């Protein structure tokens, strides 16, 4: 029987837990921070590297490595920015953390700021997350009142301010360089890389942008025995637990904290309680809407970064969307493509024109105007967005299109074969 492994959710899963500073401290909070203040920042970064944690925002880039790229000894200030602009369809894990246990994330954020030498951290939060914004602001006020934020928390000779900045509703601002532009007050559009944010980020200063979940692991990883314990939660190179946002035609949707060596089938049928109304599984979108779709036959894989990459899809932000045999995948693809057409920032040619064009073609199928030629064209237009744009939104729009056409061609044919 697969069960949750509680690292991030150890407080949340306790019914009696109160999400106040007092409650968090009672549950052992801020012990790690105290320990970290006694370590050198380089040691902190090395420990994070040792733990092998990979960013939970979608790309899976090793966090320790990212922090070690931060320019040292420059005259400019360094920044750490928490990416809480969680907008990938299907993903709702960061919201849980910020809403139900904000102090855990904030402690992680403070550890991160200490490690990279940041004295003013920003939390760029999705604008629609009103309750989470409120929860974070309340928690930050508590921390200031307690002296944990501001000058010399715990007598550490370190000072830190945190600011919550809410976005204005653009998916693209979850891309780190667009997030920085937006935070600077500009139009949120991805920047040319290089230079990477670690060299020139927020206001041209060295910056690290990290996902909320990634930062929330820091109190555990830097705690006593954290590294070894963290590594033991998954296969090599995929260490730790992760928060899985389970949604779709499933009996028990929700956010679960799971080890990285659990198979997808177990997640669907044991954690998720199987398909709704006893129907059969048709497919799964494994890592947020931008990942390639998987058919029902493919779900016997371990749900982690490397295993999914092996079968040409991705873990992304661990948002699993399950759909049953009655699902019309053309409509599903239209919904996904409409999202990307709406959210494309429009600066790169292939993504701007391609998302819109492919949406029109998919609509054609639903109107009964499909043809073999159009199916091929859809595949081609989707493919032309792949790897040709500045940021990953082009890929994010292209991968579902290509994978749906490849894996469910008959569902498309159904629409025009009737005639």
């Amino acid at each position, binding site marked *: 029987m697969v069960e949750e492994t509680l690292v991030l959710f150890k407080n949340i899963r306790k019914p009696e837990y109160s999400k106040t500073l007092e409650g968090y401290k009672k549950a052992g909070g801020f012990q790690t921070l105290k320990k970290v203040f006694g370590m050198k920042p380089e040691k902190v970064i090395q420990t994070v590297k040792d733990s092998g944690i990979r960013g939970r925002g979608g790309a899976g880039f090793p966090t320790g490595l990212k922090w070690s790229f931060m320019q040292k000894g420059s005259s400019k200030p360094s920044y750490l920015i928490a990416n809480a602009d969680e907008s990938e369809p299907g993903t709702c894990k960061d919201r849980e953390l910020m809403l139900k246990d904000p102090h855990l994330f904030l402690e992680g954020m403070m550890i991160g700021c200490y490690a990279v030498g940041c004295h003013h951290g920003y939390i760029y939060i999705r604008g629609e997350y009103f309750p989470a914004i409120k929860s974070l602001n309340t928690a930050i006020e508590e921390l200031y009142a307690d002296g944990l934020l501001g000058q010399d928390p715990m007598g550490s000779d370190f000072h830190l301010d945190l600011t919550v900045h809410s976005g204005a509703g653009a998916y693209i601002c979850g891309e780190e360089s667009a997030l920085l532009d937006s935070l600077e007050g500009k139009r949120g559009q991805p920047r040319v890389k290089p230079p990477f944010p670690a060299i020139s980020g927020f206001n041209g200063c060295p910056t690290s942008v990290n996902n909320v979940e990634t930062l929330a692991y820091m109190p555990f990883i830097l705690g006593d025995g954290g590294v070894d314990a963290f590594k033991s939660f998954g296969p090599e190179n995929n260490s730790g637990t992760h928060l899985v946002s389970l949604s779709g035609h499933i009996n028990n949707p929700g956010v679960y904290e799971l080890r990285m060596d659990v198979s997808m089938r177990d997640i669907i049928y044991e954690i998720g309680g199987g398909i709704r109304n006893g129907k059969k599984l048709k497919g799964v979108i494994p890592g947020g809407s931008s990942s390639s779709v998987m058919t029902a036959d493919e779900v016997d894989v371990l749900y982690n970064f490397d295993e999914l990459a092996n079968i040409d899809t991705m873990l992304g932000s661990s948002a699993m969307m399950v759909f049953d045999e009655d699902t019309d995948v053309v409509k599903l693809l239209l919904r996904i493509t409409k999202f990307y057409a709406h959210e494309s920032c429009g*600066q790169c040619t292939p993504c*701007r024109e391609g998302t819109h064009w492919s949406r029109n073609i998919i609509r054609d199928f639903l109107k009964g105007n499909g043809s073999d030629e159009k199916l091929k064209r859809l595949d081609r237009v989707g493919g032309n967005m792949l790897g040709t744009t500045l940021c990953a939104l082009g890929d994010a729009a292209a991968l579902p299109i290509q994978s749906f056409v490849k894996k469910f061609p008959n569902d498309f044919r159904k629409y025009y074969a009737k005639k």
Partner: protein
Amino acid sequence: MPVFHIDDQPVEFEPGEKILSAALRNGKKIPHYCYHPGMSIVATCRMCVVEIVDLGNGRPAPKLQTACSVDAADGMKVETMNKKVEEGRKLVNEFLLINHPLDCPICDQSGECTLQDYSFEYGSGKSEMDYSKRVYGWRNIGTFVSLERNRCIQCSRCDRFTREITGTNEFGMFNRGHELTVDTYTDRPMTNKFQGNMADICPVGAITEKEFRFKRRVWKLKKNRSICTGCSTGCNVTIEHDRNEVFRLKPHENQNVNKWWMCDEGRLSYRIMNERKTRINSPLGRVGQNLQDISWEEAYRAIAERIIEMAPKENEVIALTDTHASNEELFLLKKLLKDGFLSDNVFCPLPKWEQIESEFFINTLITTDKSPNRAGALALKIKGDAKNVGVKNLIDRKLKMAIILGCPFEKENDFHQKIKQTQLVIHIGAYHNCWSDIADVVLPGQNYSEKKGTFTNKLQQVQTTDIAVQALRRSRPEWQILAELGQALGYKFDFNNVNQVFGAMSEEIKAFSGLSFDQIGDKGIKLTKTFKDNGMKLVKETT
């Protein structure tokens, strides 16, 4: 300099330079839309994709890279023409065309449109886009340029221009996704003085100059290099003309003077080149109250006879010139008075002028000195001062002869009255003005689009104009008139072309010593001996 290879040809680059920049500098063409050397790199059009087969470390780049944003590296090998790259460009071009109206037959950009050029090269000829195109209404964005958003390919050059070059920020990108468009903010019209540049940098026909709209197809225009004579900056331009009519001025890149830009006022100065109403068509001689057509020979003979008859002394002659005359003309005028009458009485107006200091380079292009050759006059030591004291002192005496070149002291009415009483007034110029009204002999000169000459700009850089359009049949360039006048008076003035005049000038005038006409070339050349212009006042930009 380190070297990398484009299509197996070695290309030198400066450390930190991008592939595209190095390629363009070395004459290698890579298609691009959004890249402009004067502005920041956004790498969004995706047209300049190239395949990097060797990053300089023996490994290839994983996918096609945009040449505008990747640093060149020592030993790098780039392919710009292979099949993969062509496919990459084809797909970008296809995407760009799905919403482009393809109204080339009625578009002014047609013929100088990079989208059109690349579509010929990479376009497919048939569209697979079965849906209606994106359509926007027409917007009036100001007096100088016209915005046709349907043609826009969202390269954001115009947006970056107002942000980074003029700093006026009145233009921006709106909406997102396929509805991304350019416009001014809150319906306000454009206000900057450099809007014409936005039409230049727009790779398609989205922004066009109102002044030029529907006047001529661009492939009919012939182009000649010249300089703008609208102010003392001397922006490098091409004069674009057809059938002897000038249609527009376009800036020509010169990093020392105007970079890629010029001001709208300068662009409009093409109008004077087509001016016919006030042009002086032939030599004129005064008979009673009226001016009558005479031949050049008659004019020269009449002048020579009068001068011999009057035998004016050193302080009985005066020459007035404006600073629109070229270096050669000023030099010959000075030489004529010196050789003929031992006189130094050549005056020009030298009012005080202001140079703007600004963090945005483009704002420094406009000066308050609206003449092109003030520095030339100073270098040639033509007399003059801000309050015209020198002229006033001399003009009160009894003068026998006055030579007026161009239109100096236009607003000094008492000068006109006093010069009128002079026995012989010779006016040399292209246009009728207050001086031709009182002249005894009028000799028709030429506009600077019709003759060769050199001008010295505010940076004391000597630059040339070239013959673009054919001059009026009976007019002659001013330097030639002055040379012939000298010959008619019996002096050794055998100059057959501007080069010879310039040669004589470089021998006699210190500031020009050692320079030759052929040396000047495209980029201009600094004076040998520079000096400080005391009439210049640096002013801070007012915002």
